[in-house]
């Protein structure tokens, strides 16, 4: 049984359908990332689970306990989910220890022994020094505030922890370390987490399951590898990991009974699956584009050098098709170079839209 089950949930604001018939299973002890561009409905979905909003249709259940969709929806305080909002939202009038102990039962909060043990335990869990107990929220950095917010959410042992873009206000390096620390703490607490984010790298690197939302609809849910390696459609491929779309053609009359090859501006490429149609859209990942002694002629337009790797924007000389390649930094060509490119490994193929 899943820790959190969302079944056919729909929510509209006026004419706008924010969440459209979403069904999602979040397994016990896993971290599921809800990924999508801003305005896709992911925060609305989270607020529905938390109980700050009520769905128009569908049900939400924690284990076998239905909290919305049957009879009167449970209030947020009855649901007992842990909630980590953007920028933490620590209570500014309470110190770190009082913030973390906020959701503990009164007896535990008041007695100096037990409650404070739990506070220390939580500080250890989120990898903050115990000396932080008496700090005021404004004395903490953004990443530390997020860790305390997570500790506060985890302290009452909630069934599910909801994280609403918790790292978006942090700068890039802090975002990564805080993200990893939060994921570790969730796993150590055996907590079930639902993380809302628009950052695909964050979703892929931290979570066990990625659910991609677009315009309120769930497009694909699966492991990070599934979503990256077998994206549901070309748009999803471009959103998760980046990709170049190319027109391709699989000739029925060709000497390829398995239909595992297609012709394109990049020459003949192999496909991950049998071609679903004659006219295809091929999705080429930047890391599949290789420079070499042979291949198709291209001109380098622009190189973005990141150190360990580089993004190379090219135009194929014959067809004028733009292409993005990702190579290790030191091997990157220079802008204006003429190069030969080829595709490494099989690519994903989708039916071309006008042939549907």
């Amino acid at each position, binding site marked *: 049984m899943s820790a959190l089950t969302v079944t056919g949930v729909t929510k509209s604001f006026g004419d706008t359908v924010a969440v459209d018939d979403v069904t999602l299973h979040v397994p016990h002890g896993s971290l599921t990332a809800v990924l999508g561009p801003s305005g896709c409905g992911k925060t609305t979905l989270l607020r529905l689970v*938390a*109980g*700050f909003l009520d769905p128009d249709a569908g049900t939400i259940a924690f284990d076998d306990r239905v909290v919305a969709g049957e009879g009167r929806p449970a*209030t*947020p*305080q009855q*649901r*007992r*989910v*842990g*909630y980590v*909002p953007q920028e933490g*939202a620590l*209570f*500014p*009038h309470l110190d770190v220890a009082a913030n973390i102990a*906020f*959701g503990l039962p009164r007896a535990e909060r008041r007695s100096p022994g037990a409650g404070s043990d739990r506070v220390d335990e939580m500080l250890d869990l989120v990898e903050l020094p115990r000396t932080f107990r008496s700090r005021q929220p404004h004395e903490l950095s953004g990443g530390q505030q997020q860790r305390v917010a997570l500790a*506060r*959410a985890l302290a*009452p042992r*909630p069934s599910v922890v*909801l994280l609403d873009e918790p790292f978006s206000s942090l700068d890039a390096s802090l975002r990564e370390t805080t993200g990893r620390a939060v994921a570790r703490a969730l796993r150590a607490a055996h907590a079930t987490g639902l993380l809302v984010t628009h950052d695909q790298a964050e979703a892929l690197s931290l979570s066990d399951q990625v659910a991609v939302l677009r315009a309120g609809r769930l497009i694909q849910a699966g492991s990070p590898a599934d979503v990256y390696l077998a994206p549901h459609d070309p748009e999803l491929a471009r959103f998760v990991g980046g990709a170049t779309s190319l027109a391709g053609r699989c000739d029925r009359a060709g000497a390829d009974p398995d239909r595992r090859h297609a012709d394109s501006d990049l020459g003949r490429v192999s496909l991950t699956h049998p071609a679903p149609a004659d006219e295809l859209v091929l999705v080429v990942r930047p890391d599949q584009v290789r420079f070499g002694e042979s291949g198709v002629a291209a001109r380098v337009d622009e190189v973005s050098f990141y150190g360990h790797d580089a993004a190379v924007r090219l135009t194929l000389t014959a067809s004028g098709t733009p292409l993005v390649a990702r190579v290790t930094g030191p091997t990157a060509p220079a802008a204006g170079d003429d190069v030969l490119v080829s595709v490494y490994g099989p690519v994903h193929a989708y039916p071309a839209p006008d042939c549907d």
Partner: protein
Amino acid sequence: MLLAGAAVALLALVPLIFIAVYAVLVGPVEAWHLVVRPRMGQLLWNTLSLAGACMATCAALGVALAFLVERTDLPARRLWHGLLVAPLAVPAFVNGYAWVSLDRSVHGFGGALLVITLSYYPLVYLPAVAALRGLDPALEEASWSLGHSRWLSFWRVVLPQLRPALLGGVLLVGLHLLAEFGALQLLRYPTFTTAIYDQYGSTFNGQAATMMAGVLVFFCLLLLLAELRLRGRRHYARVGQGAARRAIPVRLRGLRLPMVAVPTAIAALAVGVPTYALVHWLLVGASTEFPLAELTEATASTLVLATLGAVATTLLALPVAWLAVRYRSRLTTAIERITYVPNALPGIVVGLALVIASLRLAPVTYQTALLLVIAYAILFLPRAVVSVRAGLEQAPVVLEQVAHSLGTGSLATARRVTLPLIAPSIGAGAALVFLAVATELTATLMLSPIGTRTLATQFWSASSDLRYGAAAPYALLLVLISVPATVLLMRQERLQP
């Protein structure tokens, strides 16, 4: 909640409604006759010329002092800053009393310009200091790098950035001047406000007084509208996230010590003179007496009225601020804006309107403490709303949601999260209203029940009978009560958006 908010907004509009209804009842022909009189022309000229002159002198003095204190290497700048803000703690009528009682030649236009400027220039000085402090020094540095001298940079870069703060302060000076009664009455300089009081007091000429009040309100609303428009654009004054760096101060070189004479002179005139006058009359006044029983009684009734006013006003402000912060919509914003209208209503107008309203609608309430407290609530609602609103913004709704998600119910959330966060602001708002009521003169004179003696009314009856010594203890108590208000207001200036 919405009903409560709408009711408060309606209450704030009562004075305006009554002035308007009364003007309509008088009839257009009669009203026109009352407005177009030689006396009106004289009052109009008196009021507007003094307002214009005071706004100009306060602007010049406020900006010059702000620049001197904030942007030069003047010695002991913190000391000067404290002294230059101090006049806010001296009610203008006490300042007028000080000057008139020491030198009978201070009166008329010149005397009024002197006393009002000395009382109100901090209204420009304070925002100008804040704006100079918040200004990103990089702007000036960019101007120098483009070949502008320091003086030209001030003129072309700094001054335009100060404009919103400067104009906002100047408009406040105008509003205060239009509402000023006590100081101008003592200085024998008739304006609309003093004329309304005289009409009301001597002849009980309701029609003439009301029409004058209508004209006065018209000018006040013009200023308020201008101020509201400015307020919307005030953020232009601040570039960057507050200056992390301080601007490099202008080196006064040889002028460093001579320049000290400027703040010294202003402080001597604005703080020294009232202090000297109070000490003088307390020590040597022929009519000086310390009637302990009367002083105690006046203090007690002042404290009671101020407490009632503070509690009532803060309670009324709560639904308005709550709606404006938590349920933002056109309606709730309109309700909030309406409660700022009394900012433009002189105490005399609110007093007059409530006299008319009570006599027409509920004669039992005339000359009761209830009516007086209502007047205070209308007059000082803006202060309470601003404070409570700032407090509610310190308690964003997400904190309550977090508390709910941690299993806390509505009541417990209010007790453990919301109230602790907003209590300081509500307290500050109540304290501000308390102190404003304690030093309010005009509406108190018009509305206080017969036999009720407050510090302000006792001061007034003594000083208008030229018993300066007898007035001194009351004036001293009024100043002492104003000091904490000044400190609070200066803190709030920092809270405001």
